[in-house]
């Protein structure tokens, strides 16, 4: 795949959760392979979109990159340095490079703090600015995200969802990070506000040359903002390609099924096909290719051998025996 010189490079990342049974003498009941051997890279100023249904491991991937969880195995490189093993002050220092914006703007701002304190906190913690300049910086950040400096002394509950998401973005920008992880940044917002926030995110990326990892279940949102797109299914990356390839030439049957399922805001394009059953439990994932029980093209090999993610040319990777 791409080389390690990219801003963020993830190699064979795995996160398995241990499930135990019993109260006093607990036994291992199994593993949930939330993220199972995935690799990808993101370069500066570019956006990778991860798409998939709930339980596919996309949010766990985000948490691993943010250092909120430590991986079972695998490595995360940032500017060529392995960061997945860092701890303590080193980790804290590194954290200013990657910031995050989460889904629910009602829960991601501390309800007891003023906007000024919320945005300034990263600056206080990392002491990157002399105290006198913090206030100016907060006002500048507010204006960057389309709010006004007069908002600084209000509390989060005085804002609407879209405005709060702007505040969350301002906070993420405070330390001049090189990358921002966006976990479902617009799915809790209203339609007319979604477009505002998506446009803002694109503007900020151009302005600050940020790398984005955007996670969403909404294929239309992902298509709009991403340069590369990875499709995840039960902890695995099943397909990864430049944006237009995914939409014009999806190779994995799951990607096709997903695209078939998305309703289109056009009554002349009624969709009446799609998968009929549900995602199996991640506790006992199917053998071989994890998608095979739902796949219309499966053969014997699919249930026995798990396909590798292979390059089919022009940065298009797919994990399927058929292609």
């Amino acid at each position, binding site marked *: 795949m791409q080389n390690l010189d990219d801003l963020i490079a993830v190699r064979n990342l795995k996160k398995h959760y241990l499930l135990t049974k019993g109260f006093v003498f607990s036994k291992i009941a199994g593993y949930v392979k939330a993220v199972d051997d995935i690799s990808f890279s993101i370069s500066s100023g570019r956006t990778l979109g991860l798409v998939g*249904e*709930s339980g596919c491991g996309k949010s766990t991937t985000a948490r691993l990159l943010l250092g909120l969880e430590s991986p079972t195995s695998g490595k995360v490189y940032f500017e060529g340095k392995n960061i997945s093993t860092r701890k303590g002050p080193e980790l804290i220092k590194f954290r200013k490079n990657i910031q995050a914006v989460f889904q629910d703007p009602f829960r991601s701002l501390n309800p007891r703090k003023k906007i000024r304190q919320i945005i300034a906190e990263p600056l206080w913690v990392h002491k990157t600015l002399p105290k006198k300049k913090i206030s100016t910086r907060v006002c500048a950040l507010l204006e960057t995200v389309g709010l006004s400096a007069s908002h600084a002394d209000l509390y989060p509950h005085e804002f*609407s*969802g*879209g*405005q709060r998401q702007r505040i969350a973005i301002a906070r993420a920008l405070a330390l001049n990070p090189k990358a921002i992880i966006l976990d479902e940044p617009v799915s809790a917002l*209203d*339609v*007319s*506000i*979604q*477009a*505002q926030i*998506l*446009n803002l995110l*694109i503007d900020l990326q151009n302005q600050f040359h940020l790398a984005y990892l955007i996670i969403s*279940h*909404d*294929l*239309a*949102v992902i*298509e*709009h903002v991403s340069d590369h797109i990875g499709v995840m299914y039960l902890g695995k990356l099943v397909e990864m390609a430049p*944006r237009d390839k995914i*939409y014009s030439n999806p190779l994995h049957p799951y990607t096709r*099924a*997903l*695209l*078939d*399922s*998305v*309703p*289109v*805001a*056009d*009554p*002349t394009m*009624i*969709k*009446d096909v*799609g*998968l*009929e059953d*549900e*995602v199996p439990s991640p506790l006992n994932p199917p053998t071989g290719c994890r998608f095979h029980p739902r796949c219309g093209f499966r053969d014997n090999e699919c249930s026995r051998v798990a396909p590798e993610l292979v390059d089919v040319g022009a940065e298009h990777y797919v994990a399927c025996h058929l292609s």
Partner: protein
Amino acid sequence: MNTDNQKLLELRGLRTYFFTRQGVVKAVDDVSFTVEKGEVIGLVGESGCGKSITSLSILRMVPEPAGKIVGGKILFKNENLLEKSEEEMRQIRGNRISMILQDPMVALNQLLKIGYQLSEPLKYHGKAMGQIREKCIELLKKVRVSSPETRISEYPFQFSGGMCQRVVIGMGVSCEPDLLIADEPTTALDVTIQAQILRLLKRVKAEFNASIIIITHDLALAAQICTRVLVMYAGKIIEKAPVKVFYENSAHPYSNGLIRSVPVVGRRVERLYSIEGQPPSLLNPTAGCRFAPRCQKAKRICNLQYPPEVILGDGHKVACWLYAEE
């Protein structure tokens, strides 16, 4: 075609207000529309626009004492529901008009078996005495739940979200209602499951010959299933149109902006159109058009007087000064 026996439900000037400490919130303010037999109506709007309150008003389930229906008529089969007693309403709810809620995990009682919950409306409304179990299994089959004979004695936590929503829909149609109100029926579900539920709703509609009101913020969903779309903004219906007309030729600047601001798979644009500003508070709304402060085409009169409803074509009505004479 607009004869009276075609009309199933008619709302005339419905007003539902909430009386709070800060003042009166006009959640539903003079809303009128009709639902004909076999129609699928999409009531589209953003959160807080009053679409859910409209549906609760139809069932007379507005949360009291804060909320109150203060005016208008709700004619269901030419009978005004607002004049019915609570007992008569109970006979209508779940029986003639039923409702499907957004989050299936919350809509089902986690402590009762699926079969019991399915049979409740049947028992209550005196349908299918004696062969309730068979009837429930049949219902589960109709909503495509696999192996219904065993699943009937399972609990909701053993079901996935999509399966729960199927059961909820099964409960909704168990008494073969004339009208089904679905409040954001797919919002809490994954994309592939959403598509399944959408297909199921279409099938249910065909099979039970029910009219459906779908309340949603998702324009794509509405496009896929509805025959007519009503757009609500800040407690008012601003545009009513047949589905094709709506998506091709929406007249109100808000509907128009909404359609253009949704990214569509396979039709990427460099920059999304975005409606600037925030939806207004329903507390003390302006006298004029409520969208006027965000509208790029606003004229002087827009801020002063609420626009009249203008008929633009067959079934296409809009409340906007761009099309009305001052």
